[in-house]
């Protein structure tokens, strides 16, 4: 068995966040090892062939693969061992194990970074009545089929959920000659970025049905029909069912941080992000274990997932392996959906908090309050749940154990 115990930092996940952090860490003299479960590194960006990446980090509007090529170029001469086709199977007796075609690999290190990305919500998360035919897929699956394998996922396609992946795929499928009959969104507002509504739906006259959901499907072998209903403000179906004949239904109903491999280790999970609880270094309650990128919380932009990982590098350079006993807990307040970090150390100067709103906000104010004392406030002109925002707060101003983040 290969035993790798001489590295300072083990990075699990060779996607954009993991590669970016590996590069930055090695440049600071930290000996790094990268493991990835696929046959090529790059993570999800390999299949994100559209633009919208790299603006913050490279100052250019790049495609996903181009960002990965940049990162590969940057780590090329840094002498970082990269193990592909290596699946992390979790910790056992304080060591982290991987299965690969080369054998079982054992690693032990003071610091671990998990950058495993996200998984998609599937049919199990929403209940759709009817048969269980072929033709119902998640949007990310369809993206891999189309962009990496170059195969045709269907002829006549409906999309459930107006999150970015669904919008991006709507455009992609039209460009590849398939028919997209519409995007159905249960909420009265869309879930993806406004620019994607414009350039993916409006550009191609793909109808967006807000306040609609798919209740039932039929088809004994391959999907034949979907049955759609309008919903009221309580998201309950109203009115008559509308039938659409399609052979493919793509589900773009949300992403979930992928941290299952750590769940058996009594990792503290945040029910609002569905990712781990972390402090401002993105350190979890498990000794030496940091989580970054979509594994931590679903980011809206890959650049943010990458740059925020520097919080973890900061913690590692400072030798942080466990939480300080004295920390400040951030409570979720009005109109806030979720945020990271969920706990912060006291008197550490300025700390960034990444948050999302729970519904579209127009002309309101964001507050970080300690009881009635305002620690931070910011005017919000317009903010959608799809757009993650960040604020810089001064922890030196906080005296108590708890603060609340809210919008009023």
């Amino acid at each position, binding site marked *: 068995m290969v035993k790798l115990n001489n590295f300072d930092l083990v990075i699990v996940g060779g996607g954009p966040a993991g590669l970016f952090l590996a590069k930055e860490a090695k440049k600071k003299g930290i000996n790094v090892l990268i493991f990835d479960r696929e046959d090529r590194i790059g993570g999800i960006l390999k299949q994100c062939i559209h633009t919208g990446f790299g603006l913050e980090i490279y100052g250019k509007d790049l495609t996903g693969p181009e960002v990965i090529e940049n990162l590969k170029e940057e780590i090329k001469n840094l002498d970082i061992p990269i193990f592909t086709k290596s699946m992390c199977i979790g910790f056992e007796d304080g060591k982290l194990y991987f299965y690969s075609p080369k054998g079982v690999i054992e690693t032990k290190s003071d610091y671990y970074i998990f950058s495993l990305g996200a998984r998609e919500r599937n049919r199990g998360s929403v209940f759709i009545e009817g048969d269980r035919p072929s033709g119902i897929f998640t949007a990310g699956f369809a993206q891999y089929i189309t*962009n990496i394998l170059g195969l045709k996922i269907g002829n006549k396609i409906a999309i459930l959920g107006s999150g970015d992946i669904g919008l991006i795929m709507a455009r992609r499928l039209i460009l590849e000659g398939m028919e997209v009959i519409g995007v159905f969104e249960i909420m009265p507002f869309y879930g993806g970025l406004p620019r994607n509504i414009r*350039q993916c739906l409006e550009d191609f006259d793909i109808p967006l049905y807000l306040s609609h959901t798919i209740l039932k499907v039929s088809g004994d072998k391959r999907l034949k029909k979907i049955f759609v209903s309008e919903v009221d403000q309580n998201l309950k179906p109203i009115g008559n069912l509308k039938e659409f004949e399609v052979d493919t239904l793509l589900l773009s109903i949300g992403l979930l941080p992928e941290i299952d491999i750590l769940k058996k280790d009594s990792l503290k999970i945040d029910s609002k992000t569905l990712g781990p609880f972390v402090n401002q270094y993105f350190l979890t309650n498990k000794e030496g274990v940091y989580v970054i990128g979509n594994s931590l919380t679903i980011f809206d932009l890959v650049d943010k997932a990458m740059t925020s990982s520097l919080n973890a590098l900061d913690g590692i350079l400072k030798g942080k392996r466990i939480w300080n006993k004295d920390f400040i807990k951030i409570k979720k307040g009005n109109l806030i959906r979720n945020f990271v970090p969920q706990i912060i150390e006291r008197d550490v100067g300025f700390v960034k908090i990444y948050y999302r709103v729970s519904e579209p906000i127009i002309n309101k104010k964001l507050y970080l309050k300690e009881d009635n004392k305002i620690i931070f406030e910011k005017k919000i002109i317009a903010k959608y749940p799809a757009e993650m925002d960040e604020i810089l707060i001064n922890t030196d101003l906080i005296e108590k154990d708890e603060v609340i983040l809210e919008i009023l």
Partner: protein
Amino acid sequence: MKEITCIVCPLGCRILIQGDNILNYKCKKGLEYAKNEITSPKRVLTTTVKVIGFERRRLPVRVDREIPKDKLFLVLREIKKIKIDKKVKRGEILIYNILNLSANVISCETIED
């Protein structure tokens, strides 16, 4: 008054167009975009092309600058004719000045093996 969402970068600023006035843009790219949207809308096209003889099956490609929105499918049809059967470097030009639109089609990835 018309409100459009700028698509130049993911910020997606909501730019207001009132007659000849363009308001609420945050950078000059946004202003350019808003001006063009009215007169001659442009888009960046990305797609994949077939790869033969390597483990990879597709190569992601893009135009290196925006092209007119109404020429998207024509450009796409030209790009579809490309078949990659030898090594290619990221940024390598696969089609020069496609359909005379002053944009090149370039490779987004390097294929070496």
